[in-house]
């Protein structure tokens, strides 16, 4: 099969709206689609964040007094689902993948531009449907995991809409995953070897493999679950002889890899950002590539560590303990390599750098509690408690969200041609970092000492620590203000950025800012050493 690196002008540019209206239309340009993903995801993040604030307000006092208990569970379910399926997954994959991958492989667009647009346009309607399901009588309230029999017995209309929307979002990410694989493998500019690709391509290749292998399992599982709800079948319903533990196996077969679908792209992004601002090559390129693939393989075989208290047999507990703990090895390699990338550099302390370093510190912390949780005897005590809530927010927020912000500071000049204000950016970082740690660090203690998760009311002895946590959440909410002001001011009268303000070597910087419709005026540049800092390449400028 041959795919031309110069796809015929499918875009019919003359018919497309110009200026910012371009971003509101059905466009086939990968850059437009990337920004659409990002903005759409950010709007859902604001909704999900508002829900998180509501949760933390409720938990500022031990009694259930801010909202009724079933509403609390609905809010919790919506928060988790929105944050995962409408914010993190679409943004680290869809937004940055679409924007960057064609540049990195030297192509003018994605392999399947129409499929790409379809993948994006599935998101707003299914997201709105999910939010709307809250207002239908009886929103989903079985948590983002939707374990039966609870999900079968709670109000059904909401749960059905929840399933449908997650199915559509899953479809969107499968379309995206296929497109990324095809683009990276087939659309590479002639002469560009796989081992010369920027690290984010490798991360997206690994992630897309996970998406394509595991998302269909989630889809199948949810379809069976909806049969149980609508058609009274008995796949998972114990009253009809179904097995509720089988659901958990199937669910986690997707949802554990989903964690890597959220963090692997972040690993890729940070590998692009650190070398530029440290002015050094990415340390250990080859081991970085192998560790990504190691994480992909191990990530697929560790799902049952979510089920250590579900009555899994002892041998299974043992296998999943060892397999899970071993993910720490490839992950650890990556962290050592990033620190080695910083070592001996000429580091610019700016917002992008600070968010990336914050990511390293937070993620190491979340990774350490992760290795602890992999140990069956340890997990048995803290499973389904606030310890776990703290652990995964250290990963998804302290890890991925920090990298999303880092990436926005890094690529904003490329996308808009304008520089964001550094003072506001650093303020944003400081408030976020303090708020985040204040919010989630104390929750480890809560879990160890007896506070289960997903509860609207708790033992009064935990009140003080919960209030500290809520204070942290308040700071996190406040931290978005300098960011939003920054973007707003920048769009109105930001400093001109020039084509390559960071003096970076990866291909997206070797074109104008913002880039033209087909990415380059002439032929795509052949970048053999995307991280050749300290060598002849960067001596050019």
């Amino acid at each position: 099969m041959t795919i031309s690196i110069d796809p015929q002008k499918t875009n019919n540019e003359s018919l497309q709206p110009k200026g910012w209206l371009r971003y509101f239309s059905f466009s086939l340009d990968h850059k437009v689609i990337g920004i659409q993903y990002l903005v759409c995801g950010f709007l859902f993040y604001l909704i999900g964040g508002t829900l998180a604030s509501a949760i933390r307000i409720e938990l500022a006092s031990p009694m259930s007094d801010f909202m009724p208990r079933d509403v609390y569970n609905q809010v919790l379910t919506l928060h988790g689902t929105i944050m995962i399926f409408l914010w993190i997954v679409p943004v680290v994959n869809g937004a940055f993948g679409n924007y960057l991958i064609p540049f990195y492989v030297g192509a003018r667009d994605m392999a399947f531009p129409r499929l790409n647009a379809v993948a994006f346009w599935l998101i707003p309607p299914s997201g709105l449907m999910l939010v709307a399901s809250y207002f239908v009588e009886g929103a989903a309230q079985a948590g983002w995991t939707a374990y039966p029999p609870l999900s079968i017995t709670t109000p059904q209309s909401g749960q059905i809409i929840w399933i449908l929307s997650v199915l559509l979002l899953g479809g969107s990410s499968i379309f995206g995953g296929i497109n990324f694989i095809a683009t990276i493998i087939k659309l590479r500019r002639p002469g560009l070897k796989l081992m010369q690709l920027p690290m984010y391509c490798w991360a997206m290749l690994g992630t897309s493999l996970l998406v394509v292998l595991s998302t269909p399992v989630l889809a199948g599982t949810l379809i069976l679950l909806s049969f149980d709800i609508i058609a009274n079948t008995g796949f998972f319903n114990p009253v009809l002889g179904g097995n509720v533990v089988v659901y958990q196996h199937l669910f986690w077969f997707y949802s554990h890899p989903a964690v890597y679908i959220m963090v692997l792209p972040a690993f890729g992004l940070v590998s692009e950002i650190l070398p530029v601002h440290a002015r050094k090559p990415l340390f250990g390129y080859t081991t970085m590539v192998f560790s990504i693939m190691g994480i992909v393989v191990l990530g697929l075989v560790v799902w049952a560590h979510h089920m250590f208290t579900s009555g899994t047999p002892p041998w299974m507990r043992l296998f999943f303990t060892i397999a899970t703990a071993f993910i720490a090895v490839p992950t650890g390699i990556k962290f050592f390599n990033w620190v080695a990338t910083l070592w001996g550099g000429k580091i610019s302390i700016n917002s992008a750098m600070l968010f990336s370093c914050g990511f390293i510190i937070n993620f190491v912390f979340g990774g350490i509690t992760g290795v602890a949780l992999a140990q069956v005897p340890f997990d048995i005590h803290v499973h389904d408690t606030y310890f776990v809530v703290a652990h995964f927010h250290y990963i998804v927020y302290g890890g991925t969200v920090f990298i999303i912000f880092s990436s926005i500071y890094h690529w904003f000049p490329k996308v808009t041609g304008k520089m964001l204000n550094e003072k506001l950016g650093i303020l944003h970082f400081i408030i976020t970092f303090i708020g985040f740690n204040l919010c989630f660090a104390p929750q480890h203690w809560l879990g160890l000492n007896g506070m289960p998760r997903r509860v609207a009311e708790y033992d009064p002895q935990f009140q003080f620590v919960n209030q500290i946590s809520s204070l942290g959440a308040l700071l996190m909410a406040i931290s978005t203000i300098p960011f939003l002001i920054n973007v707003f001011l920048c769009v109105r009268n930001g400093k001109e950025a020039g084509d390559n303000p960071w003096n970076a070597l990866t291909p997206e910087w070797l074109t104008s800012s913002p880039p033209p419709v087909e990415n380059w005026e002439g032929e795509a540049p052949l970048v053999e050493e995307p991280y050749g800092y300290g060598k002849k390449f960067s001596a050019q400028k």
Partner: protein
Amino acid sequence: MFNKNIYLILIISLVFSISFWIGFNVNLLPAEASINAPIYDELFKILFIIGLIIFIGMTIAVIYSLFKFRKRNNQIGDGIALEGNLSLEIVWTIIPSIIVLLIGLYSYNIYDRMGGMKELNHNHEMMSSNTEKIWAGISQTSDNAIATNNLSIEVSAMQFAFLFNYPKGNFISGELHVPVDQKVSMKMESKDVIHAFWVPEFRIKQDIIPGQPTILNFTPTKVGKYPIICAELCGPYHGGMRASIIVEEESDYKEWFNKNKKPEVNL
């Protein structure tokens, strides 16, 4: 060069001593009230110390780099073009692999000492029918001889309460009473959705799964009243689904038992 090594050794020993000090002096866990608890806490301490060493070490490395290698005013040019270092990368692949493997083996040992690896299906007293599949929880003992001496209790969980059935006394209680230092075997069944049985002071937890009875064995070691907490989302009142376990002296327990012992059900 010599000076540099001295500093490195100094920093490493400082990181180690701080981590050990915190590990031994900061207690993050509630009281220990079962045979399992001290075993669990031993594992916790080890993991805590190793985690602290890694975390403090990495944090120092990142913050140090940011200070030491920051770009000074008007400095131009790049850092050194160092792309990799094979021996370094081999070192930091092998060392974590060994640590992870050792932790895995050690926690296997802990799990075994807690009784988790023992086959539970020989426990005849617990089996109401031979075809029924019983899922293993943590156990203290499983040999038939000892098992028959265990205090056995049947737990049923429902939205939003635990009920404890004492088959020998033929009564049901909403509070779990057990004598101190005696092995307890529980068979747990759910009437509706998944619940979980968790006693933080005992460091044990087991889901209660509809359609699949689970068992959980433990030995309390400290007299007192401890919370039983449902740890699996089971509906709106999940947060309120709590009960108490009262660990008492043998004589107090007997007294309570005899007071409740009745031919008919007592709630």
